[in-house]
């Protein structure tokens, strides 16, 4: 008996010792042939990964002493990065968009940027720097962005005999057009919006109407539930109630692609798909509320460095490469270029499907999203999501005024 007990104890101890071997094995960050290892994580989808790998290979070929490995996380990017950060095993370089959540694990890049000189920084659209910084420091170099714009289906407009939208349209214009289209075209809806929009994106409507989720001090009261905010929610809800707009379960792209809706607001992500599908579409600025030019939310992706990277210099070399003009040009189609020089050389502003996005970029320059101001944004975001549902879900359709007041209380 004693013997058995002893055996068990020894086994338990061994097991714990294996784990307790606390000091994490020092990984010197070098490959077997002495090159410096840099891990690069991206969120691009399957079909783009091959192209990315080719680019990474190019970098490796040009740099004898650095070897970059590409880690394509796809849709699970957040999970992987969280797991990596939580266990102190971050990639050296990674795409980044959610700075408030991850800034603690990122390396501030201001000093690196300065070393590159004025021109480097200036070539990027100014507004983008705000979106890639947090708490005063820059944590990411912009590599792409999108604003939102109004997409419309030219064929449906023709069918209904309605004049196409212009950059000066207001929401009243949209409503009128949508009504006519729904009446005249069987089975089609004039406008669609998301039933559960990303709270981050939705704030742009509040901005367009002169309000926001929070003020500079981060207070919800008087902002999220201001009359202007309630107006915005009410407008969309009425569109749905009057049945000339549909609240879509997903982004609305599928409904637009298949020709079931005539208009929707979205980022530039769907442009390639729409072109492939052969949809005859046009793009204009987001409609205004009549009081001020409309504003769009900016979704900017940047490329960041891990605070704990062992090869920061090499990582920076790679970051520079990935944010160069050449790379920016290659990514057109996946994202909108962020460099003035590239936009000019490629004549982006002359392309009618891209120009409105840049106009919106100019119009949206002084706004800071609540996610950068409000402390526990992820919880607020979840609560806002629920509020959206309560207002836009056909089974709920609650009074926006009440819902917003409640949301502020929480």
């Amino acid at each position, binding site marked *: 008996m004693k013997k058995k007990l002893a055996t068990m104890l020894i086994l338990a101890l061994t097991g714990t010792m294996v*784990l307790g*071997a606390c000091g*994490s*094995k020092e990984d010197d960050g070098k490959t077997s042939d002495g090159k410096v290892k840099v*891990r690069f994580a991206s*969120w*691009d*989808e*399957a*079909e783009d*990964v*091959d192209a990315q*790998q080719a680019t990474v290979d190019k970098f490796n070929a040009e740099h004898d002493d650095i070897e970059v*490995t*590409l*880690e*394509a996380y*796809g*849709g*699970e*990017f957040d*999970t*992987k990065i969280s*797991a990596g950060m*939580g*266990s*102190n*095993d971050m*990639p050296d370089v990674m795409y980044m968009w959610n700075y408030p959540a991850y800034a603690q694990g990122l390396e501030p890049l201001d000093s690196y940027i300065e070393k590159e000189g004025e021109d480097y920084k200036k070539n990027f659209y100014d507004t983008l720097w705000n979106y890639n910084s947090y708490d005063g420091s820059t944590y990411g170099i912009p590599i792409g962005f999108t604003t939102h714009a109004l997409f419309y289906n030219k064929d449906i407009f023709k069918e209904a005999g309605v004049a196409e939208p212009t950059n000066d349209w207001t929401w009243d214009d949209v409503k009128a057009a949508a009504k006519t289209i729904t009446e005249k075209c069987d089975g089609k809806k004039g406008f669609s919006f998301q039933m559960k929009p990303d709270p981050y994106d939705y704030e742009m409507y509040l901005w367009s109407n002169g309000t926001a989720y929070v003020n500079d001090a981060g207070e919800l009261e008087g902002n999220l539930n201001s009359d202007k905010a309630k107006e915005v929610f009410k407008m969309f809800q009425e569109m749905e109630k009057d049945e000339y707009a549909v609240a879509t379960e997903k*982004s609305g*792209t*599928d409904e637009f*692609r*298949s020709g*079931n809706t005539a208009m929707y607001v979205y980022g530039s*992500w*769907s442009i390639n*798909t729409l072109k*492939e*599908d052969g949809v005859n579409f046009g793009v204009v600025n987001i409609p205004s509320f009549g009081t001020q030019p409309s504003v769009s939310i900016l979704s900017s992706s940047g490329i960041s460095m891990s605070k704990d990277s062992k090869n920061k210099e090499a990582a920076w070399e790679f970051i520079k490469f990935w944010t160069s003009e050449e790379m920016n040009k290659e990514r057109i189609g996946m994202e909108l270029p962020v460099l003035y020089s590239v936009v000019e050389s490629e004549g982006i502003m002359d392309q009618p499907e891209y120009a409105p996005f840049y106009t919106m970029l100019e119009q949206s320059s002084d706004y800071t999203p609540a996610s950068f101001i409000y402390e526990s944004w992820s919880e607020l975001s979840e609560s806002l999501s629920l509020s959206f549902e309560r207002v836009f879900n056909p089974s709920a359709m609650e009074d926006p005024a009440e819902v917003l007041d409640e949301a502020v209380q929480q």
Partner: protein
Amino acid sequence: MKMSKVSKVIIYILLGLMALYFLSPFIYMLFTAFKTEAEAIAYPPKLFPAKWLWQNFKEAWNAQPFGTFLWNSILVTVGTTVGQVISCSLVAYGFARFNFKGKNILFMILLSTMMIPWDVTMIPQYMEFKMFGWINTLKPLIIPAWFGSAYYIFLMRQFLMGVPRDFEEAARIDGANAFQIYWKIFMPILKPSLILVGVLNMISVWNDYLGPLIFLQDRSKYTLALGLAAFKGVHETQIIPMLCITIIMIIPPIIIFIIAQKYIVEGTSGSIK
């Protein structure tokens, strides 16, 4: 057992209805894989594609290094299945046919390991595997299977407990030791459940994508399931390639299932005598 005509008809009707429920999503998926992406999301939905685009499958396969993924999947699946079958049968036998001190407590501990939600032990496990240097290898996916998994141990233990005592008694009288009894008597009896566990494990590992997602980093180590999940991007999902690969991935497990069915059914009539 002779069956009346009426019962037969009833049974066929029931089978048919259930088959409808199970098959229709699958058939819908099968047909949609041949469509263009526009057709796939069209409304009203049409069952048949305008043209049968066989090249969808080729394109999907070439979209990512699925050949490599296939190899990795095979390695992991075979590696874990062999490991599970061996280790789980040993452990289940220990729990089912012996009485020893602490048996019940240990068994409760075993069961409770099934109840731990994975996403929370994931990060500590990740750290542990990092310490071992196993991250970005297939090791974290294969090696733990050689130490048994509560689910299969439990399953086999239940089967084992249903075998009458006389079997062991006879063998013991003949002077066999425990291991011989395990090997010569119980293993044959257990064959159907060994195969069952093999099939169940094979299929769940083949489709597992959480494990590979967390522990693997570069594409050369990915398994099929992870490659499949990669078609789901942050904004849009590439439906057609996803369906094509899903269908391709179903083929090996189905084949194995059909083959294994025979053995699961073999029954114990022979060995009892």
